[in-house]
């Protein structure tokens, strides 16, 4: 198969995947795990590149494809691409039964990336909830590798319960790298002595320099909505609020039509959008 440079997308064979082997599986939380994949084809393995925020279509024969964000470090891939998956849908539940050594089909990467260069020099507020931290983790790694290029960096992350928090073992390393990591849960249990409450609520606790700040947000749509309200209320302009959206996707190439929101195909014009481009459609119910 002929690959486009840096991608695992065959322009001549619609939806034909590239095979990859599962080299490692890590349980992250209840019903959520990370799969590291290694392309079978050496050329693709060598050349495949992605940017923080992009996603792949993972294919399991007999079940179909699912759009999954890449959650590992773009600068330190070792020929492996990691995906953190919530095993909740048809395809992802079937993926949860796979073992190390099993094969999975992959096409990608697709979509727009977090604006890592545009926001250099700014304070960065990363607000995410639940599985929404997965597509932001490559951005966090990028910031850590280039820490001097960014101002204050604040990560606000929330999950339903302490058991649902992703990557808990990494928070200390992120703090050590100069990121203010604030974790909250909706419902505490007996192990939890941290903050309780929803993600947007944590905005009140920080002095935010609106002129200098950019927001990156991904998570449940209701959380995103309130993160945007909080950002705009603090006079962070819509042009500096970046949102990653989720929609039904079948192709990743702006062709199948499923992911449309107004004039956009989320899979190619997104998933990462500058909020001013979305503003008109974002609050329309069921649009």
């Amino acid at each position, binding site marked *: 198969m002929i690959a486009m440079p840096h991608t695992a997308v065959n*322009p001549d064979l619609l*939806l034909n995947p590239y095979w990859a082997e599962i080299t490692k599986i890590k349980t992250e939380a209840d019903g959520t795990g990370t799969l590291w994949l290694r392309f079978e084809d050496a050329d693709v393995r060598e050349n495949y590149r992605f940017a923080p925020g992009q996603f792949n279509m993972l294919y399991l*024969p007999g079940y179909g494809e699912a759009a999954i964000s890449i959650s590992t470090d773009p600068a330190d891939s070792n020929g492996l691409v990691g995906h953190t998956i*919530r095993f909740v849908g048809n395809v992802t539940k079937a993926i949860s039964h796979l073992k190390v050594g099993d*094969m999975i089909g992959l096409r990608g990467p697709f979509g727009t990336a977090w604006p890592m260069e545009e926001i250099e020099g700014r304070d960065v507020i990363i607000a995410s909830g639940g599985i929404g931290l997965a597509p932001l983790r490559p951005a966090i790694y990028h910031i850590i590798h280039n820490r001097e290029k960014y101002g204050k960096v604040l990560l606000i992350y929330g999950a339903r319960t302490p058991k649902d928090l992703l990557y808990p073992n990494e928070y200390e390393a992120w703090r050590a790298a100069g990121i203010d990591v604030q974790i909250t849960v909706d419902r505490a249990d007996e192990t939890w002595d941290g903050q309780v409450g929803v993600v947007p609520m944590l905005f009140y606790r920080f002095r935010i320099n609106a002129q200098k700040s950019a927001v990156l947000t991904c998570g449940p749509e209701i959380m995103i909505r309130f993160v945007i309200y909080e950002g705009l209320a603090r006079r962070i302009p819509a042009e500096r609020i970046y949102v990653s959206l989720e929609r*039904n996707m079948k*192709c990743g*190439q702006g062709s*199948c039509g499923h992911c449309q929101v*107004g004039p956009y195909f989320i899979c190619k014009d997104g998933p990462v959008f500058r909020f001013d481009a979305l503003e008109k459609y974002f609050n329309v119910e069921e649009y």
Partner: protein
Amino acid sequence: MLNKMLNVNSSVTLPKSEFDTLLASLRELGYQTVGPRVRDESIVYAEVEKLDDLPRGYTSEQGPASFRLVSGGHNRYFDAIPGAQSWKQFLFPPHTNLFSAEKIERWTIKSHQETSPRYALIGVRGCELAAIEIQDRAFLRADFRDPVYRARRERLFILAVNCLHPAGTCFCASMETGPKVRGGYDLCVTELDDIFLVEIGSELGRDALSRCQYEPASGFVQSAAEKGLERATGEMGRTLLLDDLPSLLTDNLELEHWDEVAKRCLSCANCTQVCPTCFCWDAVDHTDLLARNTRRERIWDSCFNPQYSYVFGGTTRPNIKSRYRQWLTHKLGAWKEQFDTYGCTGCGRCITWCPAGIDLTEEIVSLREEPQV
């Protein structure tokens, strides 16, 4: 030979009996000739080998949720405005095998690479040719060229037909796609009572004509065709005012009228299946019981299907209101921003084949009448 004198863009007259020679030439050139045929009291697009396969003497009477084929009163072949099918099925087939996967120890894939059929489309109306050009923009983008569509499109021969007797649901004049065909064809026919006036649109078209007995087109014939087209423009069953589109739609996503349409719409998806420009698709796997062999297929989909917008946790558009709104605001709204054209050609199929008789031209009028926010 006379054909040496023919130029692209010139016109000739062809006796009707010579049309069989033209079809035979196309078949000898390797084309599968497909055109309108009468089947099950409607018009379908299927293989045609000779002029008599076409619906001679038929006319179709169309209205909201109504299609009637009537015969008699004339002997023309291209008068019946087509039925539910469009040419879309030949370029963007409703089912396409993409690949098979087999697991022995590991999964291996066998790509399905078809030798694309070479179709000669016989009798493509202005609205229909416009629809093909609209789908070109969706499937042949700079950043994504659909390989299935592309292979079929590149091998296509188009014999267009100027439309002289529009139906009750037609509004191509409003959409500026007809009744006169606006280019993009190999040959274009205007059917008069005794002869065909044929305009040559390409060298391929000229070659296909070369074995036919034709004569230069007289001014009389040409003006008869022009008059017919003028009359047809005046006979459009419907009109659609484009003035305030697409903003009428894209700026009014929360009008009460969307609720009102939803009371009538059955969300059956007929409108999207008959639409010659709708391009949405899905991919499905067909698997054996041991889950060791699977065949992946691309099929047509519709924004009216509830699962179309499904993501874990629910569907983005659970209500008919939001699905109808998506369809109409895409067709006559967002489409313009995406592809610099409307997603509608005025062919009227969505009106004719809607079981509830919903008429988008009337819905636009109603939306316009509602006080806007």
